[in-house]
C-alpha cells in the first residue's frame, strides 16, 4: 500500500549563510501493507515525526521515493499533495488540532466542506459518524468544552469522515490519561478491523505501539523492524 524507498532527509541549522546540514532520515525503506497497523517508535528527535511528515506530503524528501497505492506522492506539487491528502489520508494529532471556533459537528464536517460536499450530504454523514463514535451528546460543544478524550474522538471522527484508506496518527494518546488512552486505542483497533483502515502510528509509548501488526524502531534516523535493521 505504502512503499517507502531510500528516503533521506536532513535539516539545515545555524545562522543564515553558515548553515550546516544535520541528517534526520538515513536511507529508509519499508512497506506498509493494506489494512495493517504499523507503529514507529522512537525517542524525541529520532526522526519519526519527520518520516510521518514526508509520508503525509507535508515535507518533500531530499531523496528517495514514496508510493501510495501505486502513485508516486513524493514528487507532488503542493496542490497535488493537498488533493491527495483529502482523498486518501486521515490525520490524528497529539494535541487534537481542532478548530477552536467550530463545534464538534463543524470540526468533523470540515474535510467534507473542503471536498465540496453538499450541506445535506454532509449533515447525513456527520450525524451517522457522531453516533458511531459516541459524540452525539457533545456535537454542539466547542473544543474547549470537551475533555481530552472527547477531543481526540472528534479528531478521529474528523479523520474518518472522508473514509480514507490510510490514517496517520502522531502520538494519538500523548495528551491523554491512561484510561482514555485505552479507549482511544480500542477505537483505533476496532476501526482497523471493521473498516480495514491502514494506520501508521508514531509514538514513543511502547503500549501504544503494541496494538500494531508491525513495530518499527527509529533511532538517529535509522529504522529497525522487529529488531531487524532496515536501513540499507
Amino acid at each position: 500500500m505504502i512503499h517507502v524507498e531510500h528516503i533521506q532527509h536532513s535539516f539545515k541549522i545555524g545562522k543564515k549563510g553558515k548553515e550546516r546540514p544535520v541528517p534526520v532520515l538515513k536511507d529508509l525503506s519499508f512497506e506498509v501493507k493494506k489494512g495493517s497497523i504499523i507503529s514507529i517508535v522512537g525517542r524525541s528527535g529520532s526522526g519519526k515525526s519527520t518520516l510521518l511528515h514526508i509520508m503525509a506530503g507535508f515535507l518533500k524528501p531530499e531523496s528517495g521515493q514514496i508510493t501510495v497505492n501505486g502513485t508516486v506522492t513524493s514528487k507532488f506539487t503542493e496542490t497535488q499533495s493537498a488533493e491527495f491528502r483529502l482523498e486518501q489520508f486521515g490525520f490524528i494529532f497529539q494535541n487534537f488540532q481542532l478548530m477552536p471556533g467550530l463545534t464538534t459537528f463543524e470540526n468533523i464536517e470540515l474535510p467534507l466542506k473542503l471536498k465540496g460536499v453538499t450541506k445535506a450530504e454532509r449533515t447525513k454523514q456527520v450525524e451517522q459518524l457522531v453516533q458511531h463514535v459516541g459524540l452525539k451528546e457533545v456535537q454542539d460543544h466547542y473544543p474547549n468544552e470537551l475533555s481530552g478524550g472527547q477531543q481526540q474522538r472528534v479528531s478521529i471522527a474528523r479523520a474518518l469522515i472522508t473514509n480514507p484508506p490510510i490514517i496517520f496518527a502522531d502520538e494519538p494518546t500523548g495528551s491523554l490519561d491512561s484510561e482514555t488512552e485505552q479507549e482511544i486505542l480500542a477505537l483505533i483497533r476496532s476501526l482497523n478491523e471493521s473498516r480495514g483502515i491502514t494506520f501508521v502510528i508514531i509514538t514513543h509509548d511502547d503500549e501504544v505501539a503494541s496494538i500494531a501488526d508491525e513495530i518499527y524502531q527509529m533511532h538517529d534516523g535509522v529504522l529497525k523492524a522487529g529488531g531487524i535493521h532496515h536501513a540499507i
Partner: protein
Amino acid sequence: MQFKDQLNFVSQHIKKNKLRVFMTILAATMGTAFLIILASVGFGIQDTLKKEILDNRLVTQVEVHSADLDKEKADKMKKLDHVKAVVLRQEVNAFQTTTLDKYTSPSSLLISDFSEEKKAGFALEKGRLPKGKYEVVVGHDFAENLMNEEEVEKFQSQQQANESNEEEQIVPELPHYEGELLGKEITYEIGSFETGESYKEPIKLTIVGIAKAPSKDFISDGNLYADASLIPEMEAIYDRHKPEESEASLFYSNLNVYADELQNVKGITTTLKDDGYSVYSISEELEQIDVFFLALKAGLIFVGTIAILISSIGIFNTMTMAVTERTREIGVMKALGAKPKLIQRLFLLESAWIGIIGTLIAVILSYAISILANYILPLVVGAALGEENFGELNVTFSIIPWQLVVIASAISIGVAMISGWRPARKATQIDVIDALRREL
C-alpha cells in the same frame, strides 16, 4: 469548497473580530466617501455651469448666417440627419407700426413657416396658429408695447412732479393696453425709416393666438408672427413707395436649424460648416467646458484615491493580523487537504468583503452628504455673502452620477483586494509542520 461555505467561513472569522473589522470598514468607508464627495463637487460645479449656459440659450439651436438664405436652402437643410426643424424667419427691413384702437406699437413683423416653428418648440399660451393670410400670432409681451401717447405723456408729467417730492425713485411701468387681444383686429403699416412715416396703406390683421412667454424673464417678445402668404401684398406696398434708386429688399432672412438632440448639434454644425455656411452653436462652448471639467474631475478622483490608499493600510494591517492569528488553523486546513488557492481565496474574500461593505456604506453616506450639502451650503454661503436669495439660485454643489459610484467602487474594492493580496499569499505559504507545532 462550495462558495457558500467559503462565505460562511469568512463571516465566522469576521464575527470573531467584530471591533477590528468594524474599524477597518470605517477607514475604507471614510476613504471612499471622501473620494465620492470630492469628485461630486466637480460634477456639481460642471452641472451648474452647463445649466447656466444652457438656460440662457436654446441648446439644440444652430444659428446659420449667410447673405442669401432662402426656402430652397432651408428645405435642403431639413433633409440632413438629426435635423428636427429648420426655421427660416423673414424680418421686415422697414419702419413698422401697429395700431389697436387708440394704442400703437412699434412691433416687428416676422414671417415664418408655422409647421417648422411648432417642431422647433414654438408654443402658444392662448388661441391658435394662423390659418389665413391676415391672421397673426402676437408675442407674449405684445400688449406691453401697445401704448397711448396721451396716456404716456400724462403719466410722465405726473412722474416728474412726484420725483421732485420724493427722494426714492421707483421706476414705474408705463401705461399700456390691458384689454383682451384674442380676436381683435389690428392695423399694421410699413413706412420709411428716413422719414419715420408710414406709407398709409394699412393692412388689417386679426390676432388669433398669443405666444408663450420666453424661457428667460429678461427676454421680451412683442413681435407679430404672420404667414408667408402676406409677403406679396407687403412687397407690393413697398415697391409702390420705395425710392426708385433703392435696391434694398423689404425682407431679410435669418435661419435656425434645430437638432433632435444635444449630442447631434455638433454633427449638424460640422456639416453646415462644410457646406460653406457661417454657423454658431452651443456645442463648441460645451465641449471646452467638458474638457476642463474632465481634467478637474480626474484630479479630484486622484486626490480621493490617496485617501483610499491610506485606508488600505488599515485593511493590510487587519488581514496580516488575521493571517498571523490563524496560522495554526490554516496549518490544520492545509494538513486536512485544503489547496493553497482555497486558502488564498478565503483571505481575498475577507478583504473584498471589507472593501464591499465599506464601499456600500460610503455610497449611501455620500448620497446623504451630497443631498445635505446641496440643501445647507447655499443657505450658509448666502448668509456669509449677505445675499438672502442665494439659496433660490440654481447652484448645485454636489452631484453623484452612477459613473462616479462605479469608478469609486472599483477603486475601493480593487484597493481592498490588493491590500489583502499579500497577506493572502502569506497564508498560502504557511508551513504546515510549523503551524501544527503552535499552541492554541
